[in-house]
C-alpha cells in the first residue's frame, strides 16, 4: 500500500464543513441567482404542456419538412411522437423536452462565446481544455449531491448537471470550426481590409457554422443522455419512469420509457442534422469536406 504521507482527514472535514457553511449562509443567494433559469425552464415546460398534442405534431413535422423538403423525415417524426403518445409517455416526454431545450439554449449562450474565445487565444484554450475534460469525466453525482444541498433538489441542479455534461462538445466544436476556416479565405478577407470583428462575424462564424451546428446536435444528444441522472435528483420526466422500472424490476416500464428517450433523440438529432446539411449545401462546402 502507498505510505501515508499526510493525514487527509482534516482536509476532508474542512471540505465537508465548508460545504455546510455555504449551505447555511449562501443557500438563499445561490437559489435567488438561479431563479431566472428556473423561471425560464418552467415557462418552456408550461408552454409545451399547454400546447395541444396535435399542434406539436404539426410544428415538429413542419420543421422536419422545412429542413429536408422531403416526406421521409416528417413521417419519422410523426411515428416517434405517436409512440410517445400511445405509450402514455406524453407528459413525461414534454417535461424532459423542456429540460433538454432549456439546457441546450443555455449551453449555446455560454458555449458559443467560450468557443470563440478559445479559438482566438491559445492560452485560454490550454486552460479550458482540461476543465472541459474534467466536466465530461467527473462522475456527475460527485457535484450533484453538493448542488442539491445548495440549491435544493429539483430542476435547478438537474439543469446544472445537464449543462455541465452537455456544454463541452459545443465549446470544442466551435473552437475547432473557427480554427479550421481555410487560411486562404482568411488571407483574402484580410486583403479586403476587414478588421478582426468583421472577419469573425462575416467570415469565420458563417464558415464554421456547420461545425457549430454539429456541436449543438451533440449537445442536444448529451442533454438527453443526462435525463436519467437528472431524474435521480428530482427532475421528473422520462428518466423517472426508467428509475421506477429499474427499482421495481418492471422491465417493460423501463424499456418503454427508455425507448421514449430514444424517440426524442431521433426527432431532435435528425432535425438538427438535416439543417446542418442544408447549411453546408448553401455555403457550398458540402463537397469540399
Amino acid at each position, binding site marked *: 500500500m502507498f505510505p501515508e504521507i499526510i493525514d487527509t*482527514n482534516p482536509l476532508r472535514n474542512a471540505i465537508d464543513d465548508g460545504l455546510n457553511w455555504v*449551505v447555511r449562509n449562501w443557500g438563499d443567494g445561490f437559489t435567488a441567482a438561479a431563479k431566472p433559469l*428556473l423561471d425560464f425552464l418552467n415557462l418552456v415546460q408550461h408552454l409545451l404542456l399547454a400546447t395541444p398534442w396535435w399542434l406539436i405534431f404539426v410544428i415538429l413535422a413542419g420543421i422536419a419538412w422545412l429542413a429536408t423538403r422531403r416526406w421521409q423525415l416528417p413521417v419519422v417524426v410523426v411515428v416517434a411522437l405517436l409512440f410517445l403518445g400511445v405509450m402514455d409517455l406524453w407528459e413525461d416526454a414534454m417535461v424532459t423536452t423542456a429540460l433538454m431545450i432549456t439546457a441546450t439554449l443555455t449551453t449555446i449562450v455560454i458555449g458559443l462565446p467560450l468557443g470563440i474565445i478559445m479559438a482566438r487565444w491559445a492560452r485560454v484554450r490550454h486552460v479550458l481544455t482540461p476543465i472541459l475534460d474534467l466536466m465530461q469525466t467527473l462522475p456527475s453525482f460527485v457535484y450533484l449531491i*453538493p448542488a442539491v444541498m445548495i440549491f435544493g433538489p429539483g430542476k435547478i441542479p438537474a439543469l446544472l448537471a445537464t449543462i455541465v455534461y452537455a456544454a463541452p462538445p459545443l465549446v470544442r466544436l466551435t473552437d475547432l470550426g473557427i480554427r479550421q476556416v481555410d487560411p486562404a479565405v482568411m488571407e483574402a478577407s484580410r486583403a479586403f481590409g476587414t478588421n478582426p470583428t468583421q472577419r469573425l462575424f462575416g467570415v469565420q462564424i458563417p464558415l464554421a457554422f456547420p461545425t457549430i451546428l454539429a456541436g449543438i446536435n451533440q449537445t442536444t444528444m448529451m442533454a438527453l443522455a443526462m435525463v436519467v441522472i437528472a431524474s435521480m*435528483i428530482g427532475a421528473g420526466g422520462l428518466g423517472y419512469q426508467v428509475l421506477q422500472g429499474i427499482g421495481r424490476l418492471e422491465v417493460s416500464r423501463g424499456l418503454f420509457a427508455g425507448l421514449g428517450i430514444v424517440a426524442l433523440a431521433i426527432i431532435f438529432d435528425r432535425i438538427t442534422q438535416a439543417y446542418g446539411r442544408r447549411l453546408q449545401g448553401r455555403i457550398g462546402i458540402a463537397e469540399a469536406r
Partner: protein
Amino acid sequence: MRISWKSVLAGVALAAAATVSMPAQAQDATACGTDKKIDIAEMTWPSAAALAHIHAIILDKGYGCNVEVVAGDTVPTSASMLARGTPAVAPELWTSSITRQWNEGLDDGSVVELGDAITDGTIEGWFIPRYTQEANPELKTVQDVIAHPELFPDPEEPDQGRFYSCPPGWTCELAGTALFEALDMDATWNLFSPGSGGALAASISRAFEREEPILFYYWGPTALLGKYDAAQLDLGEVKPDVYACNTDPECEDPPGVTAYPSSPAIVGAASWVKDEAPNVAEYFGKVGLSNAEISKLLVYGDENNADAEATALNFLKTEKDTWTKWVPADVAEKVEASLG
C-alpha cells in the same frame, strides 16, 4: 508456462492432506468448514456496508474462511442469491421489498434466514425536525402537520406544501404515495420524489443545516437520523392488511392510512452456507445489533469520514463486549490479535 511435476505433486499431497483432515475440522467449533469462497454482499447504504466488513474480518481472521466482500443492493443481490447461491451472505437484508420472491426461495430451500440483523426492528415513518416541532408544539401527528402546508412551502410552487417522499422503485415510494392519497393531501400538498437516496439525504441535510422546516420520509437505523434530531410523526396504528395493499401495485382497494410496520432486516444466506459451514451459520445467528448500537457505529463513520472498512475496524476495536459474545473465545482471540 511449463508445469513442473514437483508443484503438481505438492498440490496433490496438499489436497490429500486436506481431505484427510476434513472430518477433524468439521468437529472443531472454530473452523470455517468450507474452502468455498464466502462472498458477503456490501449493500449501498452505510449500516449494511459496515456490517459486511465487520463479518468479513471476523470470518477471515477468526474462522480462517475464504471471504470476499462484493458490492450489492437489495434486488440484484437477492435475485442472484436465489438463482445462483452467490453472494453467499447478505448481512442486512430488508425482505419487505422482495417478500414474494424471498418467501418462495425459503420454501424451495435455495436461501435461509440465519438470524436478525437488527434486533429491535427498524424505524420507518414521516418526520419533521425537532426545532420545527418545538416552534409549533401542536404538530404531533401526521394530521396536525397536514393541516399546515404553509409551514412547509414547496420552493417551486410556494402556495403548496412539499412532502419529500421516497426514491422511485422503492417500496416506500408506493407506501408514501398511497398515504398521500389516503390522507387527502393532494389539494394543498405536492408529493415530491427526490429521485435517489443520495438526493433525499442531501435535501434533508440542507433543511437541517439551514434550520428550515421540512416534512420527509426516512428510515432507521441510519447515520442521518443519528446525526440530526428529527421527530417522528404519529401515523396511528399499524394495519398490516392496509399496508400490504398500499404497497401492492396490483391491489385495487382504495389506499388507507396506516403506520409503517417494523420491517424485518435479517441476515440472509444461500442455503449451502448452512449445510457446508455450520459454524458460520451459527455465528450469523448471534450477530444481531440494536438500532442504538448501529446508529453509534454509523455516527463514528460519519464524523470521521471513515469508509465502511475503517468503521468496521473501529467497531471491532472499541466494542469488544458486543462482538466477543458472537464467537467462541479462541476465535475472539485470533480476531483481536489481528487487530494489533
